[in-house]
């Protein structure tokens, strides 16, 4: 499961390098997110632009990862492809995440919020 963390002053970016978050890798995704965010507090931004497909298991893993983070910070999403966005929209999970088009937009938001 290719997921690359990059630590910034005010946030942690996790770039997902997989093309699919599906039932075959959902558990691995959630475990890896748990590892990568274990020391993190504050804001985590998950960069998903390489991901072109998410199924309900993958969606559940993303939601689960966000729930793991909730006590110590928050998790935002960046770069949803049309298909991934569709799954979030259909299941109404688009309303429980803050979703940005690009990392730039997401981090701009971070500056404004401070």
């Amino acid at each position, binding site marked *: 499961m290719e997921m690359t963390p990059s630590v910034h002053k005010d946030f942690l970016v996790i770039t997902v390098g997989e093309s*699919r978050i*599906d*039932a*075959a890798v959902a558990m691995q995704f959630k475990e890896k997110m748990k590892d990568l965010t274990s020391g993190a507090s504050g804001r985590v931004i998950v960069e998903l632009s390489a991901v072109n*497909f998410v*199924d*309900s*298991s993958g*969606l*559940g*893993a993303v*939601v*689960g990862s*966000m*729930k793991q983070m909730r006590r110590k910070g928050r998790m935002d999403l960046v770069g949803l492809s*049309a*298909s991934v966005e*569709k*799954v979030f929209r*259909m*299941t*109404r999970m688009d309303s*429980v995440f803050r979703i940005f088009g690009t990392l730039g937009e997401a981090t701009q938001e971070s500056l404004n919020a401070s």
Partner: protein
Amino acid sequence: MRHDAGMNHVRADPPATAAGGVLSRSAFRATFENVRLAIEDAMSTLEPLNLPDEEKSSVEIALAEALNNVVEHAYPDGTPGDVKLVLRHGRAGLLIEIRDNGRPMPNGRTPKGNHPTENHPSDELPEGGFGWFLIRELARDLVYDRENGENFLIFRLAVGRKNAPTKPSLST
């Protein structure tokens, strides 16, 4: 690396009929990895239909949910078994037929597919239970039957419709 152990795949030239000419038949061992490969094969089979991206994603989502359900529920906990998938295309759209010899649907019926928050209102952020919700949203004419220990699921996706009547717009 492709691990297509147990995968076999037959592609046929599609005769265009109303009922639906067979586009492909495949059979594979029920694993999540093989579901991934089967979806990949199915999507390449559909290439000649030149579906718009929106329709392609509907097919991919519905296929993934229906096939993953077989792996997860018909053959739970890694029970070995096979899945058969037939794709047909006709004027009404794409017909997806899935057969397996695993456990029957609970109470012999397909789940209603409510949004998971309707089933468990206390759980504000559900992590599961979206599969049938998505299938119900996307699929039409869904039929489930079981005969001689075989589950049979067929549904239609209104994509790639030939001569689809355009809806008359309600002008005001």
